[in-house]
């Protein structure tokens, strides 16, 4: 097999990410740009529109398995979710059930709700959450890929954490409120959004992986994301062709009770801890953490988690 030079996930457009993630030539897009279904709400405010409303949805093959892929375009309005954008994501998640996809790949690159159509965006994110639950209940794993310039914030930060697996690059960022919002409301002493190292130690891939908010830390390389997504898909316990019984799965309550205890323990961390560096110190990890490459870092954490 030929090895090619790494192609940055972060720098690629949504369409290039989709191409790089799927088996060559296997992608079929739904409601593609030729249909020109744009946001009437942006137009009403004389704001620029995009022929795909900032999200690419369709199906293709990953290691010869049928998958649904959703990719937000961070360069259009910060990947923010409006009425059409959100409806495309919801439709794609429901379509995954229809075609019995082996998995859904959800490339999140978004600051959350699009303010120009804030009410439609908020409701759309709630509808995406419901559709994501429906796909999972049908036995289809949803895999979040976070490594774009906008990260995964606001409602899309919640959606990313609802996924069965969350793959993140070191440059990827994950959170709820962006640093700028916190600084604007609470002041620069609470969160200095221009301190890039601090922002990375709070929202970046390494600290998210450390706390268990992300499944795996990856190099900023589309091929690395592809390989990790394929591994998650193959390793997932759920099978696309055998939907679980509708209703309460016997272990669901216990699983969530265990998650509750885990999250309670984390929230009980020393209240003085307000920086990722303090988390690493608390865990007995030294300065070398910042220098480890993703593979080494995953191994280090996996050894501790065992």
């Amino acid at each position, binding site marked *: 097999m030929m090895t090619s030079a790494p192609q940055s996930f972060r720098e690629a457009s949504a369409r290039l990410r989709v191409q790089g993630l799927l088996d060559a030539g296997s992608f079929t897009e739904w409601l593609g740009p030729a249909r020109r279904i744009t946001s009437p709400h942006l137009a*009403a405010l004389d704001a620029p529109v995009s022929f795909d409303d900032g999200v690419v949805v369709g199906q293709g093959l990953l290691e010869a398995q049928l998958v649904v892929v959703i990719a937000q375009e961070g360069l259009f309005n910060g990947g923010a979710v409006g*009425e059409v954008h959100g*409806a495309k994501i919801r439709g794609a998640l429901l379509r995954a059930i229809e075609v019995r996809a082996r998995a859904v790949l959800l490339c999140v690159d978004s600051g959350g709700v699009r303010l120009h159509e804030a009410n439609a965006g*908020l409701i759309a994110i709630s509808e995406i959450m419901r559709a994501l639950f429906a796909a999972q209940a049908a036995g289809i794993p949803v895999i979040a890929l976070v490594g774009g310039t906008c990260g995964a914030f606001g409602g899309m930060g919640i959606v990313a954490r609802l996924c069965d697996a969350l793959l993140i690059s070191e440059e990827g960022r994950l959170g709820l409120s962006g640093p700028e919002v916190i600084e604007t409301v609470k002041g620069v002493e609470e969160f200095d959004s221009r301190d890039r190292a601090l922002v990375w130690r709070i929202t970046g891939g390494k600290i998210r992986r450390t706390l268990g908010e992300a499944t795996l830390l990856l190099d900023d390389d589309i091929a690395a994301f592809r390989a990790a997504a394929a591994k998650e898909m193959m390793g997932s316990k759920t099978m696309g062709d055998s939907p679980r019984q509708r209703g309460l799965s016997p272990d669901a309550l216990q699983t969530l009770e265990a998650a509750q205890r885990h999250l309670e323990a984390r929230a009980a961390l020393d209240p003085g801890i307000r920086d*990722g560096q303090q988390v690493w110190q608390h865990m007995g990890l030294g300065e070398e953490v910042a220098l480890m490459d993703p593979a080494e870092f995953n191994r280090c954490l996996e050894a501790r988690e065992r």
Partner: protein
Amino acid sequence: MSMSKKALLDRLFPAGHEVIEAGQVLCGWGQTAAGRVHVIGTTEHAAIDTRIALALSAAVLRGVADDGNQPRPIVFIADTQGQALSRREELLGLNGYFAHLARCVNLARSAGHRLVTLIDGEAVSGGFLAFGLLADVIVALPGAEVRVMDLRAMARITRIPYERLTELAGFSPVFAPGADNYWRMGGIHALWTGTEDWAAQLQALLQGSHEDERARLGAERGGRKLAASVAQEVLHGHG
């Protein structure tokens, strides 16, 4: 408990209720003509942080575990100014706590609990997404404020003049705050008025579909004309 929340509970559950308020979180039960229901919620426009999110998810999990095969309805009282804004909370992964809460709410639905949200006070952005907005039926009580962001902040961030936004808000429900706007978009099922019999109205909502009908409602009411049709086209795999 605040007088207004006590008055609300008296009005919803004239046959009795026992709800405790601790740290802006409500938890307990109310008696309806159809039996007891769980009451879980927030008060005083709570900024939802990890502590509150955990208290809410714990209450939902307890309800699911206690009820077993006889799932009672859950009535969520939503009163939230949104998510807590804090570096420490972001470090802990507040979005992950909200996702956990959402999973617990969805577990309750899967286990057969009917989910009804009553917005009393404010319902804003992330705090609303985490639990209230996931219910089967969502009702705004009189005076409820529902929004992502107020128009002045929106004007500042989008760099669209405030005057322009207020002018457009007069006929478009799509961005301006307001429970009625959310009703037109199908995100809120009903707006109750001050003179109605809330106990009877709540009772009527304790049975019904678990399906997400909001996009269809938004199209019917004319506030969200594309959400349903676009999702349908994708669902059918149209190119």
